[in-house]
């Protein structure tokens, strides 16, 4: 059911009243929450009451347009959404234009991009809207062609009658318009009739990307919005007290304005290069930060102190115990596009342009920060250069608005790369303790206690209500929210008797957020390493053991698939090994097989300003994501997930020393590079008879980090317990903290190739 909206051209809206049908399984371990109702369900249900406000417009040029209330950050949702509309409307893909909707508070829960939920929650409403549009076009065509709807056929945006006469959607757009809004019923195309959905399509923005035409926030030309950067404090979350040389810096070439804001001293100039020079010249007196004197070791000690005890379960006296204790260090979730935002704050209104996955919350915070009503704040959502959880927060958007207000001018704010790991959002440090017991070839119990520096969920479910609840003082609201998210996402997919997985979080004043896949990469990595230990204790092969204990046939199928394709069990030279792991989340399942080379000649490869380390030489990933809209896009997300997994296991972390993070750029923060990736990569998209798409964006990470860690343990004979494995050796010389940003080199011409 949906709506024909009043208008001069055809506009339709979808109403969603689709009942969820959670499936419970009969299993020896009691079902965990995500098996019955998971984060996808929570987000989908939260999005339901307002989904009817999603509209598709048919234009007179024969194109259909749709404003997607989500953020495209590389995950391919503008492409998959175009495909859904093209399918239902029988329109060529290039005639569908999907843009991103600005912040629309009336959408409430329905404007959060996160939890890999876009396709899960928008698939049906978008189809319904497109189907209504199609129905209205056919009605109009029947009148136009003097025929009846049942005899008409539609193809590629043209409706034809049996007598050969035809009319285009463009010609019908005005005729199909409804003078009033009315409810209509609709039948969706049968999945067996799909011609677009399920086929591999290139990204709709690919041409713009390869020609350099795709515009990110910093590429927009907003009148008078000059480059602006912030001179930031030397310690985490410090703040400026006073400026000693404001006049001198203000007189520097290109500099137009200087303003003190709570996060630092903002400089506006003709070019970003001149902002950098000015920042380096500023002499600022700073207030202390939020974690003065703290380091990795002190934070870890606080986490250990907050761990919820493992309860020694009532097991027979002869049972053997496997105990393991893991630490996952802080990691930066920064994308390649640094935090950036354009803001134009006037006396009576504010306009902001930024990549935002939670624009309604950002809009609320901007309004609060500049003292305007929400209705006076326009927030334009711009396609982002990556997110990985970073863009859930409006940090740059709010900061840019404050600066614009302070300067009384439009600003184009960009964070320096150094600002990102040092002051930006990080994935919290956490520990994971596991105790499992076995007797007579059976796993009797499996307990996990995950303890984390508090994960900031103050974006809530994308609207101000839950956002405010999560921001309650003392982190109380946030902890409740964190625990809910943890319980809604974590699911041990094995029959291990009595299973408990608990989270505790400690608010330690860091800037955190949900990095791609939230808790799962760490939780799953800990679990899968212990699963390998259990298999070893029972004298079983890791694959056979998993297949014997896994609950779900879909998880078993992906695991068997990677084992077959990847050649599990083949003989490998000493110092190299295979690893295999699974993960179940996002209404789907993934399995990964990797081969790793930990021989000294590989580990010790000399690469300037980089970490070589062990090389994953092969990766095979199989994914069951339910109904797949664009297999090629899903494959891309899995490739990215494997890349992230390798980084999390082997190379990527930030080091906290004396109240600040040491990393300042890509020569300090070792995300996976060409010399780290598996030259041999394969992704298998499993066939599925599901009627519902699953999540894709984050689904590839957890099993990848786990498989890499398991392979490393098998290749070296030692199970790693701190991640990434190279965290304890600092592989770079830290850049200075004052000035907070490095000078740009001048020797680029000596390095051409």
């Amino acid at each position, binding site marked *: 059911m949906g709506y024909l909206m009043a208008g001069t051209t055809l506009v339709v809206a979808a109403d969603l009243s689709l009942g969820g049908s959670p499936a419970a399984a009969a299993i020896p371990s009691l079902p965990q929450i995500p098996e019955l109702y998971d984060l996808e369900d929570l987000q989908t249900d939260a999005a339901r009451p307002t989904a009817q406000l999603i509209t598709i417009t048919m234009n007179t040029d024969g194109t259909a347009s749709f404003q997607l209330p989500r953020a495209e950050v590389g995950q391919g949702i503008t492409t998959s959404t175009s495909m859904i509309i093209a399918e239902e409307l029988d329109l060529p893909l290039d005639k569908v234009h999907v843009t991103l909707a600005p912040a629309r508070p009336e959408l409430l829960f329905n404007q959060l991009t996160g939890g890999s939920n876009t396709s899960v929650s928008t698939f049906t409403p978008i189809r319904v809207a497109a189907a209504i549009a199609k129905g209205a076009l056919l009605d109009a065509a029947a009148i136009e062609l003097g025929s009846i709807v049942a005899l008409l056929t539609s193809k590629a945006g043209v409706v034809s009658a049996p007598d050969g006469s035809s009319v285009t959607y463009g010609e019908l757009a005005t005729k199909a318009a409804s003078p009033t809004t009315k409810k209509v019923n609709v039948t969706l195309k049968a999945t067996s009739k799909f011609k677009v959905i399920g086929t591999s399509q290139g990204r709709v923005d690919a041409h713009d990307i390869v020609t350099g035409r795709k515009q990110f926030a910093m590429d927009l030309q907003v009148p008078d919005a000059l480059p602006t950067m912030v001179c930031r404090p030397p310690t985490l979350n410090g703040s400026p007290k006073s400026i000693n040389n404001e006049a001198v810096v203000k007189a520097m070439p290109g500099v137009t304005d200087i303003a003190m804001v709570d996060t630092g001293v903002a400089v506006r100039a003709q070019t970003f*290069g001149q902002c950098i020079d000015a920042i380096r010249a500023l002499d600022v007196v700073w207030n202390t930060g939020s974690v003065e004197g703290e380091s990795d070791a002190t934070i870890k000690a606080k986490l250990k102190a907050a761990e919820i005890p493992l309860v020694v379960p009532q097991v027979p006296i002869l049972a053997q115990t496997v105990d393991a204790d893991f630490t996952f260090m802080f990691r930066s979730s920064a994308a390649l596009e640094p935090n950036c935002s354009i803001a134009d704050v006037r006396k009576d209104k504010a306009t902001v342009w930024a990549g935002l996955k939670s624009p309604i919350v950002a809009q609320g915070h901007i309004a609060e920060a500049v003292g305007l009503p929400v209705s006076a704040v326009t927030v334009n959502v711009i396609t982002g250069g990556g997110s990985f959880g970073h863009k859930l927060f409006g940090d740059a958007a709010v900061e840019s608005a404050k600066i614009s207000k302070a300067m009384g001018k439009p600003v184009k704010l960009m964070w320096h790369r150094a600002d990102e790991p040092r002051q930006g959002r990080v994935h919290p440090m956490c520990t994971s303790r596991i105790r499992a017991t076995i007797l007579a070839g059976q796993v009797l119990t499996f307990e996990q206690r995950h303890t984390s520096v508090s994960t900031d969920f103050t974006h809530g479910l994308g609207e101000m209500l839950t956002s405010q609840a999560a921001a309650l003082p003392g982190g109380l609201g946030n902890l409740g929210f964190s625990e809910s998210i943890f319980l809604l996402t974590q699911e041990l997919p094995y029959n291990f008797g009595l299973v408990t997985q608990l989270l505790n979080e400690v608010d330690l004043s860091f800037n955190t957020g949900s990095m791609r896949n939230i808790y799962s990469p760490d939780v799953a990595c800990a679990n899968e390493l212990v699963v390998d230990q259990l298999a070893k204790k029972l004298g079983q092969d890791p694959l056979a053991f998993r297949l014997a204990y896994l609950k779900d046939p879909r998880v078993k199928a992906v695991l068997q698939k990677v084992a077959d394709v990847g050649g599990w069990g083949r003989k490998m030279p000493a110092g190299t090994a295979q690893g295999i792991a699974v993960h179940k989340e996002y209404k789907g399942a993934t399995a990964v097989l990797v081969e790793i080379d930990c021989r000294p000649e590989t580990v010790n490869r000399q690469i300037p300003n980089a970490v070589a380390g062990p090389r994953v030489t092969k990766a095979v990933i199989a994914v069951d994501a339910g109904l797949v809209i664009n297999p090629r896009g899903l494959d891309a997300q899995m490739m990215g997930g494997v890349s992230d997994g390798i980084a999390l296991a082997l190379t990527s972390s930030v080091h906290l020393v004396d109240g600040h993070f040491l990393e300042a750029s890509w020569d300090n923060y070792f995300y996976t590079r060409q010399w780290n990736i598996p030259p041999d990569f394969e992704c298998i998209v499993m066939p599925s008879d599901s009627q519902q798409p699953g999540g894709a964006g984050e689904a590839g990470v957890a099993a990848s980090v786990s498989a890499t860690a398991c392979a490393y343990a098998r290749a070296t004979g030692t199970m790693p317990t701190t991640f990434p494995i190279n965290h304890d050796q600092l592989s770079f010389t830290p850049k200075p903290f004052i000035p907070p*940003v490095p000078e740009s080199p001048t020797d680029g011409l000596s390095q051409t190739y």
Partner: protein
Amino acid sequence: MSMQTFLLNGTSVTVDVNPDVRLLWVIRDMLGVTGPKYGCGINVCKACTSHINGKAFNPCSVRVGDIKPTDEVTTIEGLPATVGKDLHPMQEAWLEFDVAQCGYCQPGQIMAAVAKVKAARAAGHEIGDADFDEIRNVCRCGTYNRIREAITAGAKNM
């Protein structure tokens, strides 16, 4: 301030700017050519990779004052014109393999790829795994495998 002149994508441009400003900002902020992206400003991420006189370089780490009036600077926007087509074969290959995810690193990746293929040939071999391992451009979305496939295919048509 002083006048700085060079060739940008085939056209002579003159800007009134301090010679110390790095070329990336002259191109992006003053001339509005935004294909080359900022990712670090210190020549480590390679998002700004462009060509100077046909060779790859990183304009974030070159003073505009060090560029001569006869120097030809080519950004991703000017790449097709270097082969007289709508798209360079490397861009075609990027489309064929649907390499991009967010796309932010991709202009730099393509410019690096073209130079890398030429450099391999100048050294007497076709581009291969060892050359790919030397490409320093960061892709935070992790598109590295597709980049390798696309370069291999694009090289065939260069």
